[in-house]
């Protein structure tokens, strides 16, 4: 295949050099690798230093085992594809959702679930915004609480159960990534799950809803009610 302008009086020095390079595949590959590495290294490496990376704040605590279970379900169902967790620092966003999101609020988010599309509203400050019963009904039938919603119903969250043994494995793995959990035994995890789940079950009972602590919906409610709360507490306490 001929290449226009390849030879001729106007040929520049770099073209001559490049012509040689095209004959040296290994060198060409190395130079390409260097070219694509520079940008990534320059942007990613500083994120691991306290000076240039996201700030940290002691007021943020790890997700509880029940919230971890809820977060796993949130990922499984792809909630992050329609809901962001990221209030931008603009007047309209703060009016609509509340305080804009600070970096430290994401400290224990593995993976991050900031989202990229708002088919539905942002959830960064949804924790505490509605009673537990609202979330229960909203998952069962979104249009019962939000007429006109395009969200599908998630009725199976009311049927499926969480498994303490499985969640224990999550806690162990998260500990390995650096999350400071103090429990690692299944019995401890189970107790934590049952304890927090039972409180939500009691809340639901006051709203006329019968539930059990190991239903997936309970874990989901625990996670949603947790969102943004540490950040809000720190920010309202004059932490920043």
């Amino acid at each position: 295949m001929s290449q226009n302008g390849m030879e001729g009086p106007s040929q520049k020095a770099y073209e001559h050099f490049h012509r040689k390079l095209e004959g040296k595949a290994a060198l060409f590959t190395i130079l390409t690798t260097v070219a694509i590495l520079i940008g990534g290294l320059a942007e990613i490496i500083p994120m691991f230093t306290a000076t240039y990376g996201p700030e940290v704040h002691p007021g943020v605590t790890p997700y509880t085992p029940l919230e971890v279970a809820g977060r796993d379900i949130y990922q499984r169902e792809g909630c992050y594809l329609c809901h962001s967790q990221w209030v931008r620092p603009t007047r309209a966003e703060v009016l609509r959702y509340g305080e804009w999101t600070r970096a430290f609020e994401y400290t224990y988010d593995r993976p991050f679930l900031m989202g990229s599309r708002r088919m539905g509203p942002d959830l960064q400050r949804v924790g505490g915004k509605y009673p537990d019963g609202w979330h229960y009904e909203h998952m069962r039938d979104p249009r019962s609480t939000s007429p006109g919603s395009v969200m599908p119903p998630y009725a199976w969250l009311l049927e499926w159960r969480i498994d303490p043994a499985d969640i224990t494995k999550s806690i162990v793995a998260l500990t390995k990534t650096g999350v400071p959990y103090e429990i690692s035994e299944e019995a401890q995890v189970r107790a934590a799950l049952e304890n927090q789940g039972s409180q939500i079950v009691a809340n639901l009972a006051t709203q006329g809803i019968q539930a059990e602590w190991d239903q997936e919906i309970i874990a989901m409610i625990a996670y949603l009610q947790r969102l943004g709360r540490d950040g809000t507490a720190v920010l309202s306490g004059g932490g920043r």
Partner: protein
Amino acid sequence: MNQPRYDDDVVKLFLGATVLWGVVGMLVGVIIALQLAYWPANLGLPWTTFGRLRPLHTNAVIFAFGGNILFTGIYYSTQRLLKVRMWNDMLSRLHFWGWQLIIVLAAVTLVLGMTQSKEYAELIWPIDLLITVVWVIFAVNLFGTIAVRQVKHMYVAIWFYISFVITIAVLHIVNSLAIPATLFRSYPVYSGLTDALVQWWYGHNAVGFFLTTPFLGLMYYFLPKAAERPVYSYRLSIIHFWALVFLYIWAGPHHLLLSALPDWAQTLGMVFSVMLIAPSWGGMLNGLLTLKGSWERMRTDAVLKFMVVAVSFYGMSTFEGPMMSIRAVNSLAHFTNWVIGHVHSGALGWVGMISFGVMYWLIPRLYNRPLWNEKWPTYHFWLATIGIVLYTVTMWVAGLMEGLQWRAIDQETGLLQYPIFIDIVRRLMPYYWLRVVGGGMYLVGMIMLAINYWNTIRSPEPVAAAEPTPAPAD
């Protein structure tokens, strides 16, 4: 008994897989578009909700359809450009079947809700490991072929293939680092905004080095072939190649503008995104100007029609993207349907159309017989083009509308003018329906290609067979 000079059997395998996964991926796309317009289309089953099918759609069109057409074009063109058979036939087969296995595993796990929830990197860690193995097989085979080449100088298409193989390997490995909890679940070694930055470094360069550079490689081989003209400028191809691979990698943080990501990182992402216009348009101009003098043939040649529209959409979306990366524009565009429109003008317009052009050019040559129906490609072209326009225009309008209504503030009260989120969602419904129509037209075109392909390969081979795979003229 002589082995054919080039291994075209593996090219045929990849081509067939492209057709199959193209239909599947685009069908799922139309289904999830319908789910937004009409929620009962979620069917009330866990496996068919939008949240599970959306990753299936993106993975199917990018890695199954896009991946297979790339491998089709790369295996076909590399052998001819280097005038040598692929280095190892066994590795070619392992690459093909390994890639299809990954796709099938992806389809099963994604509908079951097994996901790492990083966009375009959703697949669970065992599949990530398999991808790594298959990618190494591909890389060894490609570099092996380059090593034994019979042509001293590597043509520009090969440069782009090299950047593709190297960069995707780096991105995939770094972004997938995670600690497994079970066979199906893991947690990334990065947290919070660092995880977000790594993911969008990956995510944007999946666009850059999966959906752009290797497709530019295909353009550099197949467009001059179809136009029967040399590439317009050698000098331009040098400059835009190096500028593109160097600049693209920085652009990721434009996905995190107005987040709590450190400002310096956001600004780097924005500035490099804007600079990307230059090398992107370098590629577009080199493609379009190669057609200089062939415009007459555009009237009758469906392959050239597909290619010229593809390159035009490449130019448009690489102008739109940098604009959307400017912080002020991004504050309006981000989170809205505008982004979906932008992605699809690139995906349907650039990636899809160049793929269709390559396929219609390749099928008669690979199978040494005329297309079963030589008019259908033209109908396909018009269906696809009108479908894309309908899709992108409705998404622009919908995106601008929701973006403006989310931010509108009542001048008298100082409060939100449209405080009820769901009211804004309701106003999007007509656009969601129009998008189903536009996407549906594009799918019908793809199905026409599939029918044409199937009937062509099943038709009898002409008796007076020409030289099956003539080497390219120098």
